[in-house]
């Protein structure tokens, strides 16, 4: 039955329309959980606030369980789900660049637009920096191209690399995530901040 767009159950345009509404809902939830404050995101790096970690890991696990169960019921064909191809070098370099930007700016691309939507000036400055980065990369693409495509791994799955079933890996990931949540909540108590 699914995924809906590759099976032509819904058209590409309907797909975009759904994405539009999902995006609005996503932004609304981010804002109402306080993600429009740059201190929230910086908190994960200083240990006083782990909401970001908890929210995004819970989202990942929810999506994972949803997909695995829907595949089990025959509702979705996992082979047709788009998986970003892995270029190891650019993934690592990009992760470092993004991580540094998160700490310095206190926003991720999504939360910066949330912040800008409620009129935060630091968020707007962050978006400006984001566009400088995007255009800077585009105009100097020739310099990076080789590194950009280095160490191509295809579309690997961690479960395949470890030689276990998707479901078993899912269980391990859930246990790891819960362990991380536990440590994060301990850290929140250990490095409290009165006001932010």
């Amino acid at each position, binding site marked *: 039955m699914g995924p809906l767009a590759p099976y032509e159950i819904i058209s590409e345009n309907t797909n975009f329309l759904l994405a539009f509404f999902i995006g609005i809902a996503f932004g609304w939830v981010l804002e109402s959980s306080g993600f429009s404050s740059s201190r929230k995101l910086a908190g994960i790096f200083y240990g006083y606030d782990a909401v970001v970690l908890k929210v995004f890991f819970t989202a990942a696990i929810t999506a994972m369980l949803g997909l695995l169960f829907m*595949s089990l019921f*025959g509702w979705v064909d996992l082979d047709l789900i788009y998986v970003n191809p892995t270029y190891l070098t650019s993934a690592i370099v990009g992760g470092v660049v993004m991580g540094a930007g998160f700490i310095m700016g206190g926003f991720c691309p999504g939360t910066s637009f949330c912040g800008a939507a409620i009129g935060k000036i630091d968020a707007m400055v962050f978006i400006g920096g984001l566009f400088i980065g995007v255009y800077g990369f585009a105009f100097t693409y020739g310099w990076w191209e080789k590194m950009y495509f280095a160490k191509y791994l295809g579309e690997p799955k961690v479960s395949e690399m470890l030689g276990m079933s998707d479901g078993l890996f*899912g*269980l391990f990931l859930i246990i790891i995530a*819960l362990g991380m949540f536990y440590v994060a909540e301990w850290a929140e108590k250990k490095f409290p901040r009165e006001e932010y």
Partner: protein
Amino acid sequence: MKSLKLLALIIIPLGIIIAAVPPDRTRHFRLTADELLQEAGAGVQFVSADVVADMLVQNDPSLQLIDVRTPEEFDAFSLPGAINVPLSNLLAEEYTDLLNQDARMNVFYSNGSVYANQAWMITRQLGYENNFVLEGGLNFWFGNILAATEPAQTSPNEEFAKYDFRKSAAAALGGGGVVSATGDTPTVKAVKPPVTAKAKKKPAGGC
């Protein structure tokens, strides 16, 4: 901490369930309408009668002819080595291993090519590979392989080579009957067709 426990209570049992059940094997392969149309339009499923005749004469073990007509028609006449899988029984479980394999080249045939094409389309939609259709079906086979007509004197050499091949193939294949049914007359068996590379390299569709 309370919400963490609640979350754990919900997701750990779900994780255990998903780890314990076998991965989904009920996945249904489906080509999009566009893809199927493209394949059918390009005629990638067709194997020309000459190629099949050549493989038959050479006893190519990779060829598996599948007769999709009714058992009565199959009993009346069939190509050498063919198996009868009536179109109505195509999806029977006993034939799954035959149709879904990657060792041999299955060639469906019927009187024309309509039923064989239907069989190909169904198996293709199931995601099976290596299934093909005898181009023109048995009608073309009779008219052009077993009863090949001499080309006109002005025809290009290629046509004559094809005719020679078809004539000798027809002789080797029993000239219109089932090989085993017509009896093994040594004179018939002795005739080996000239193996023309040209005739062998003629898969229709031009891939």
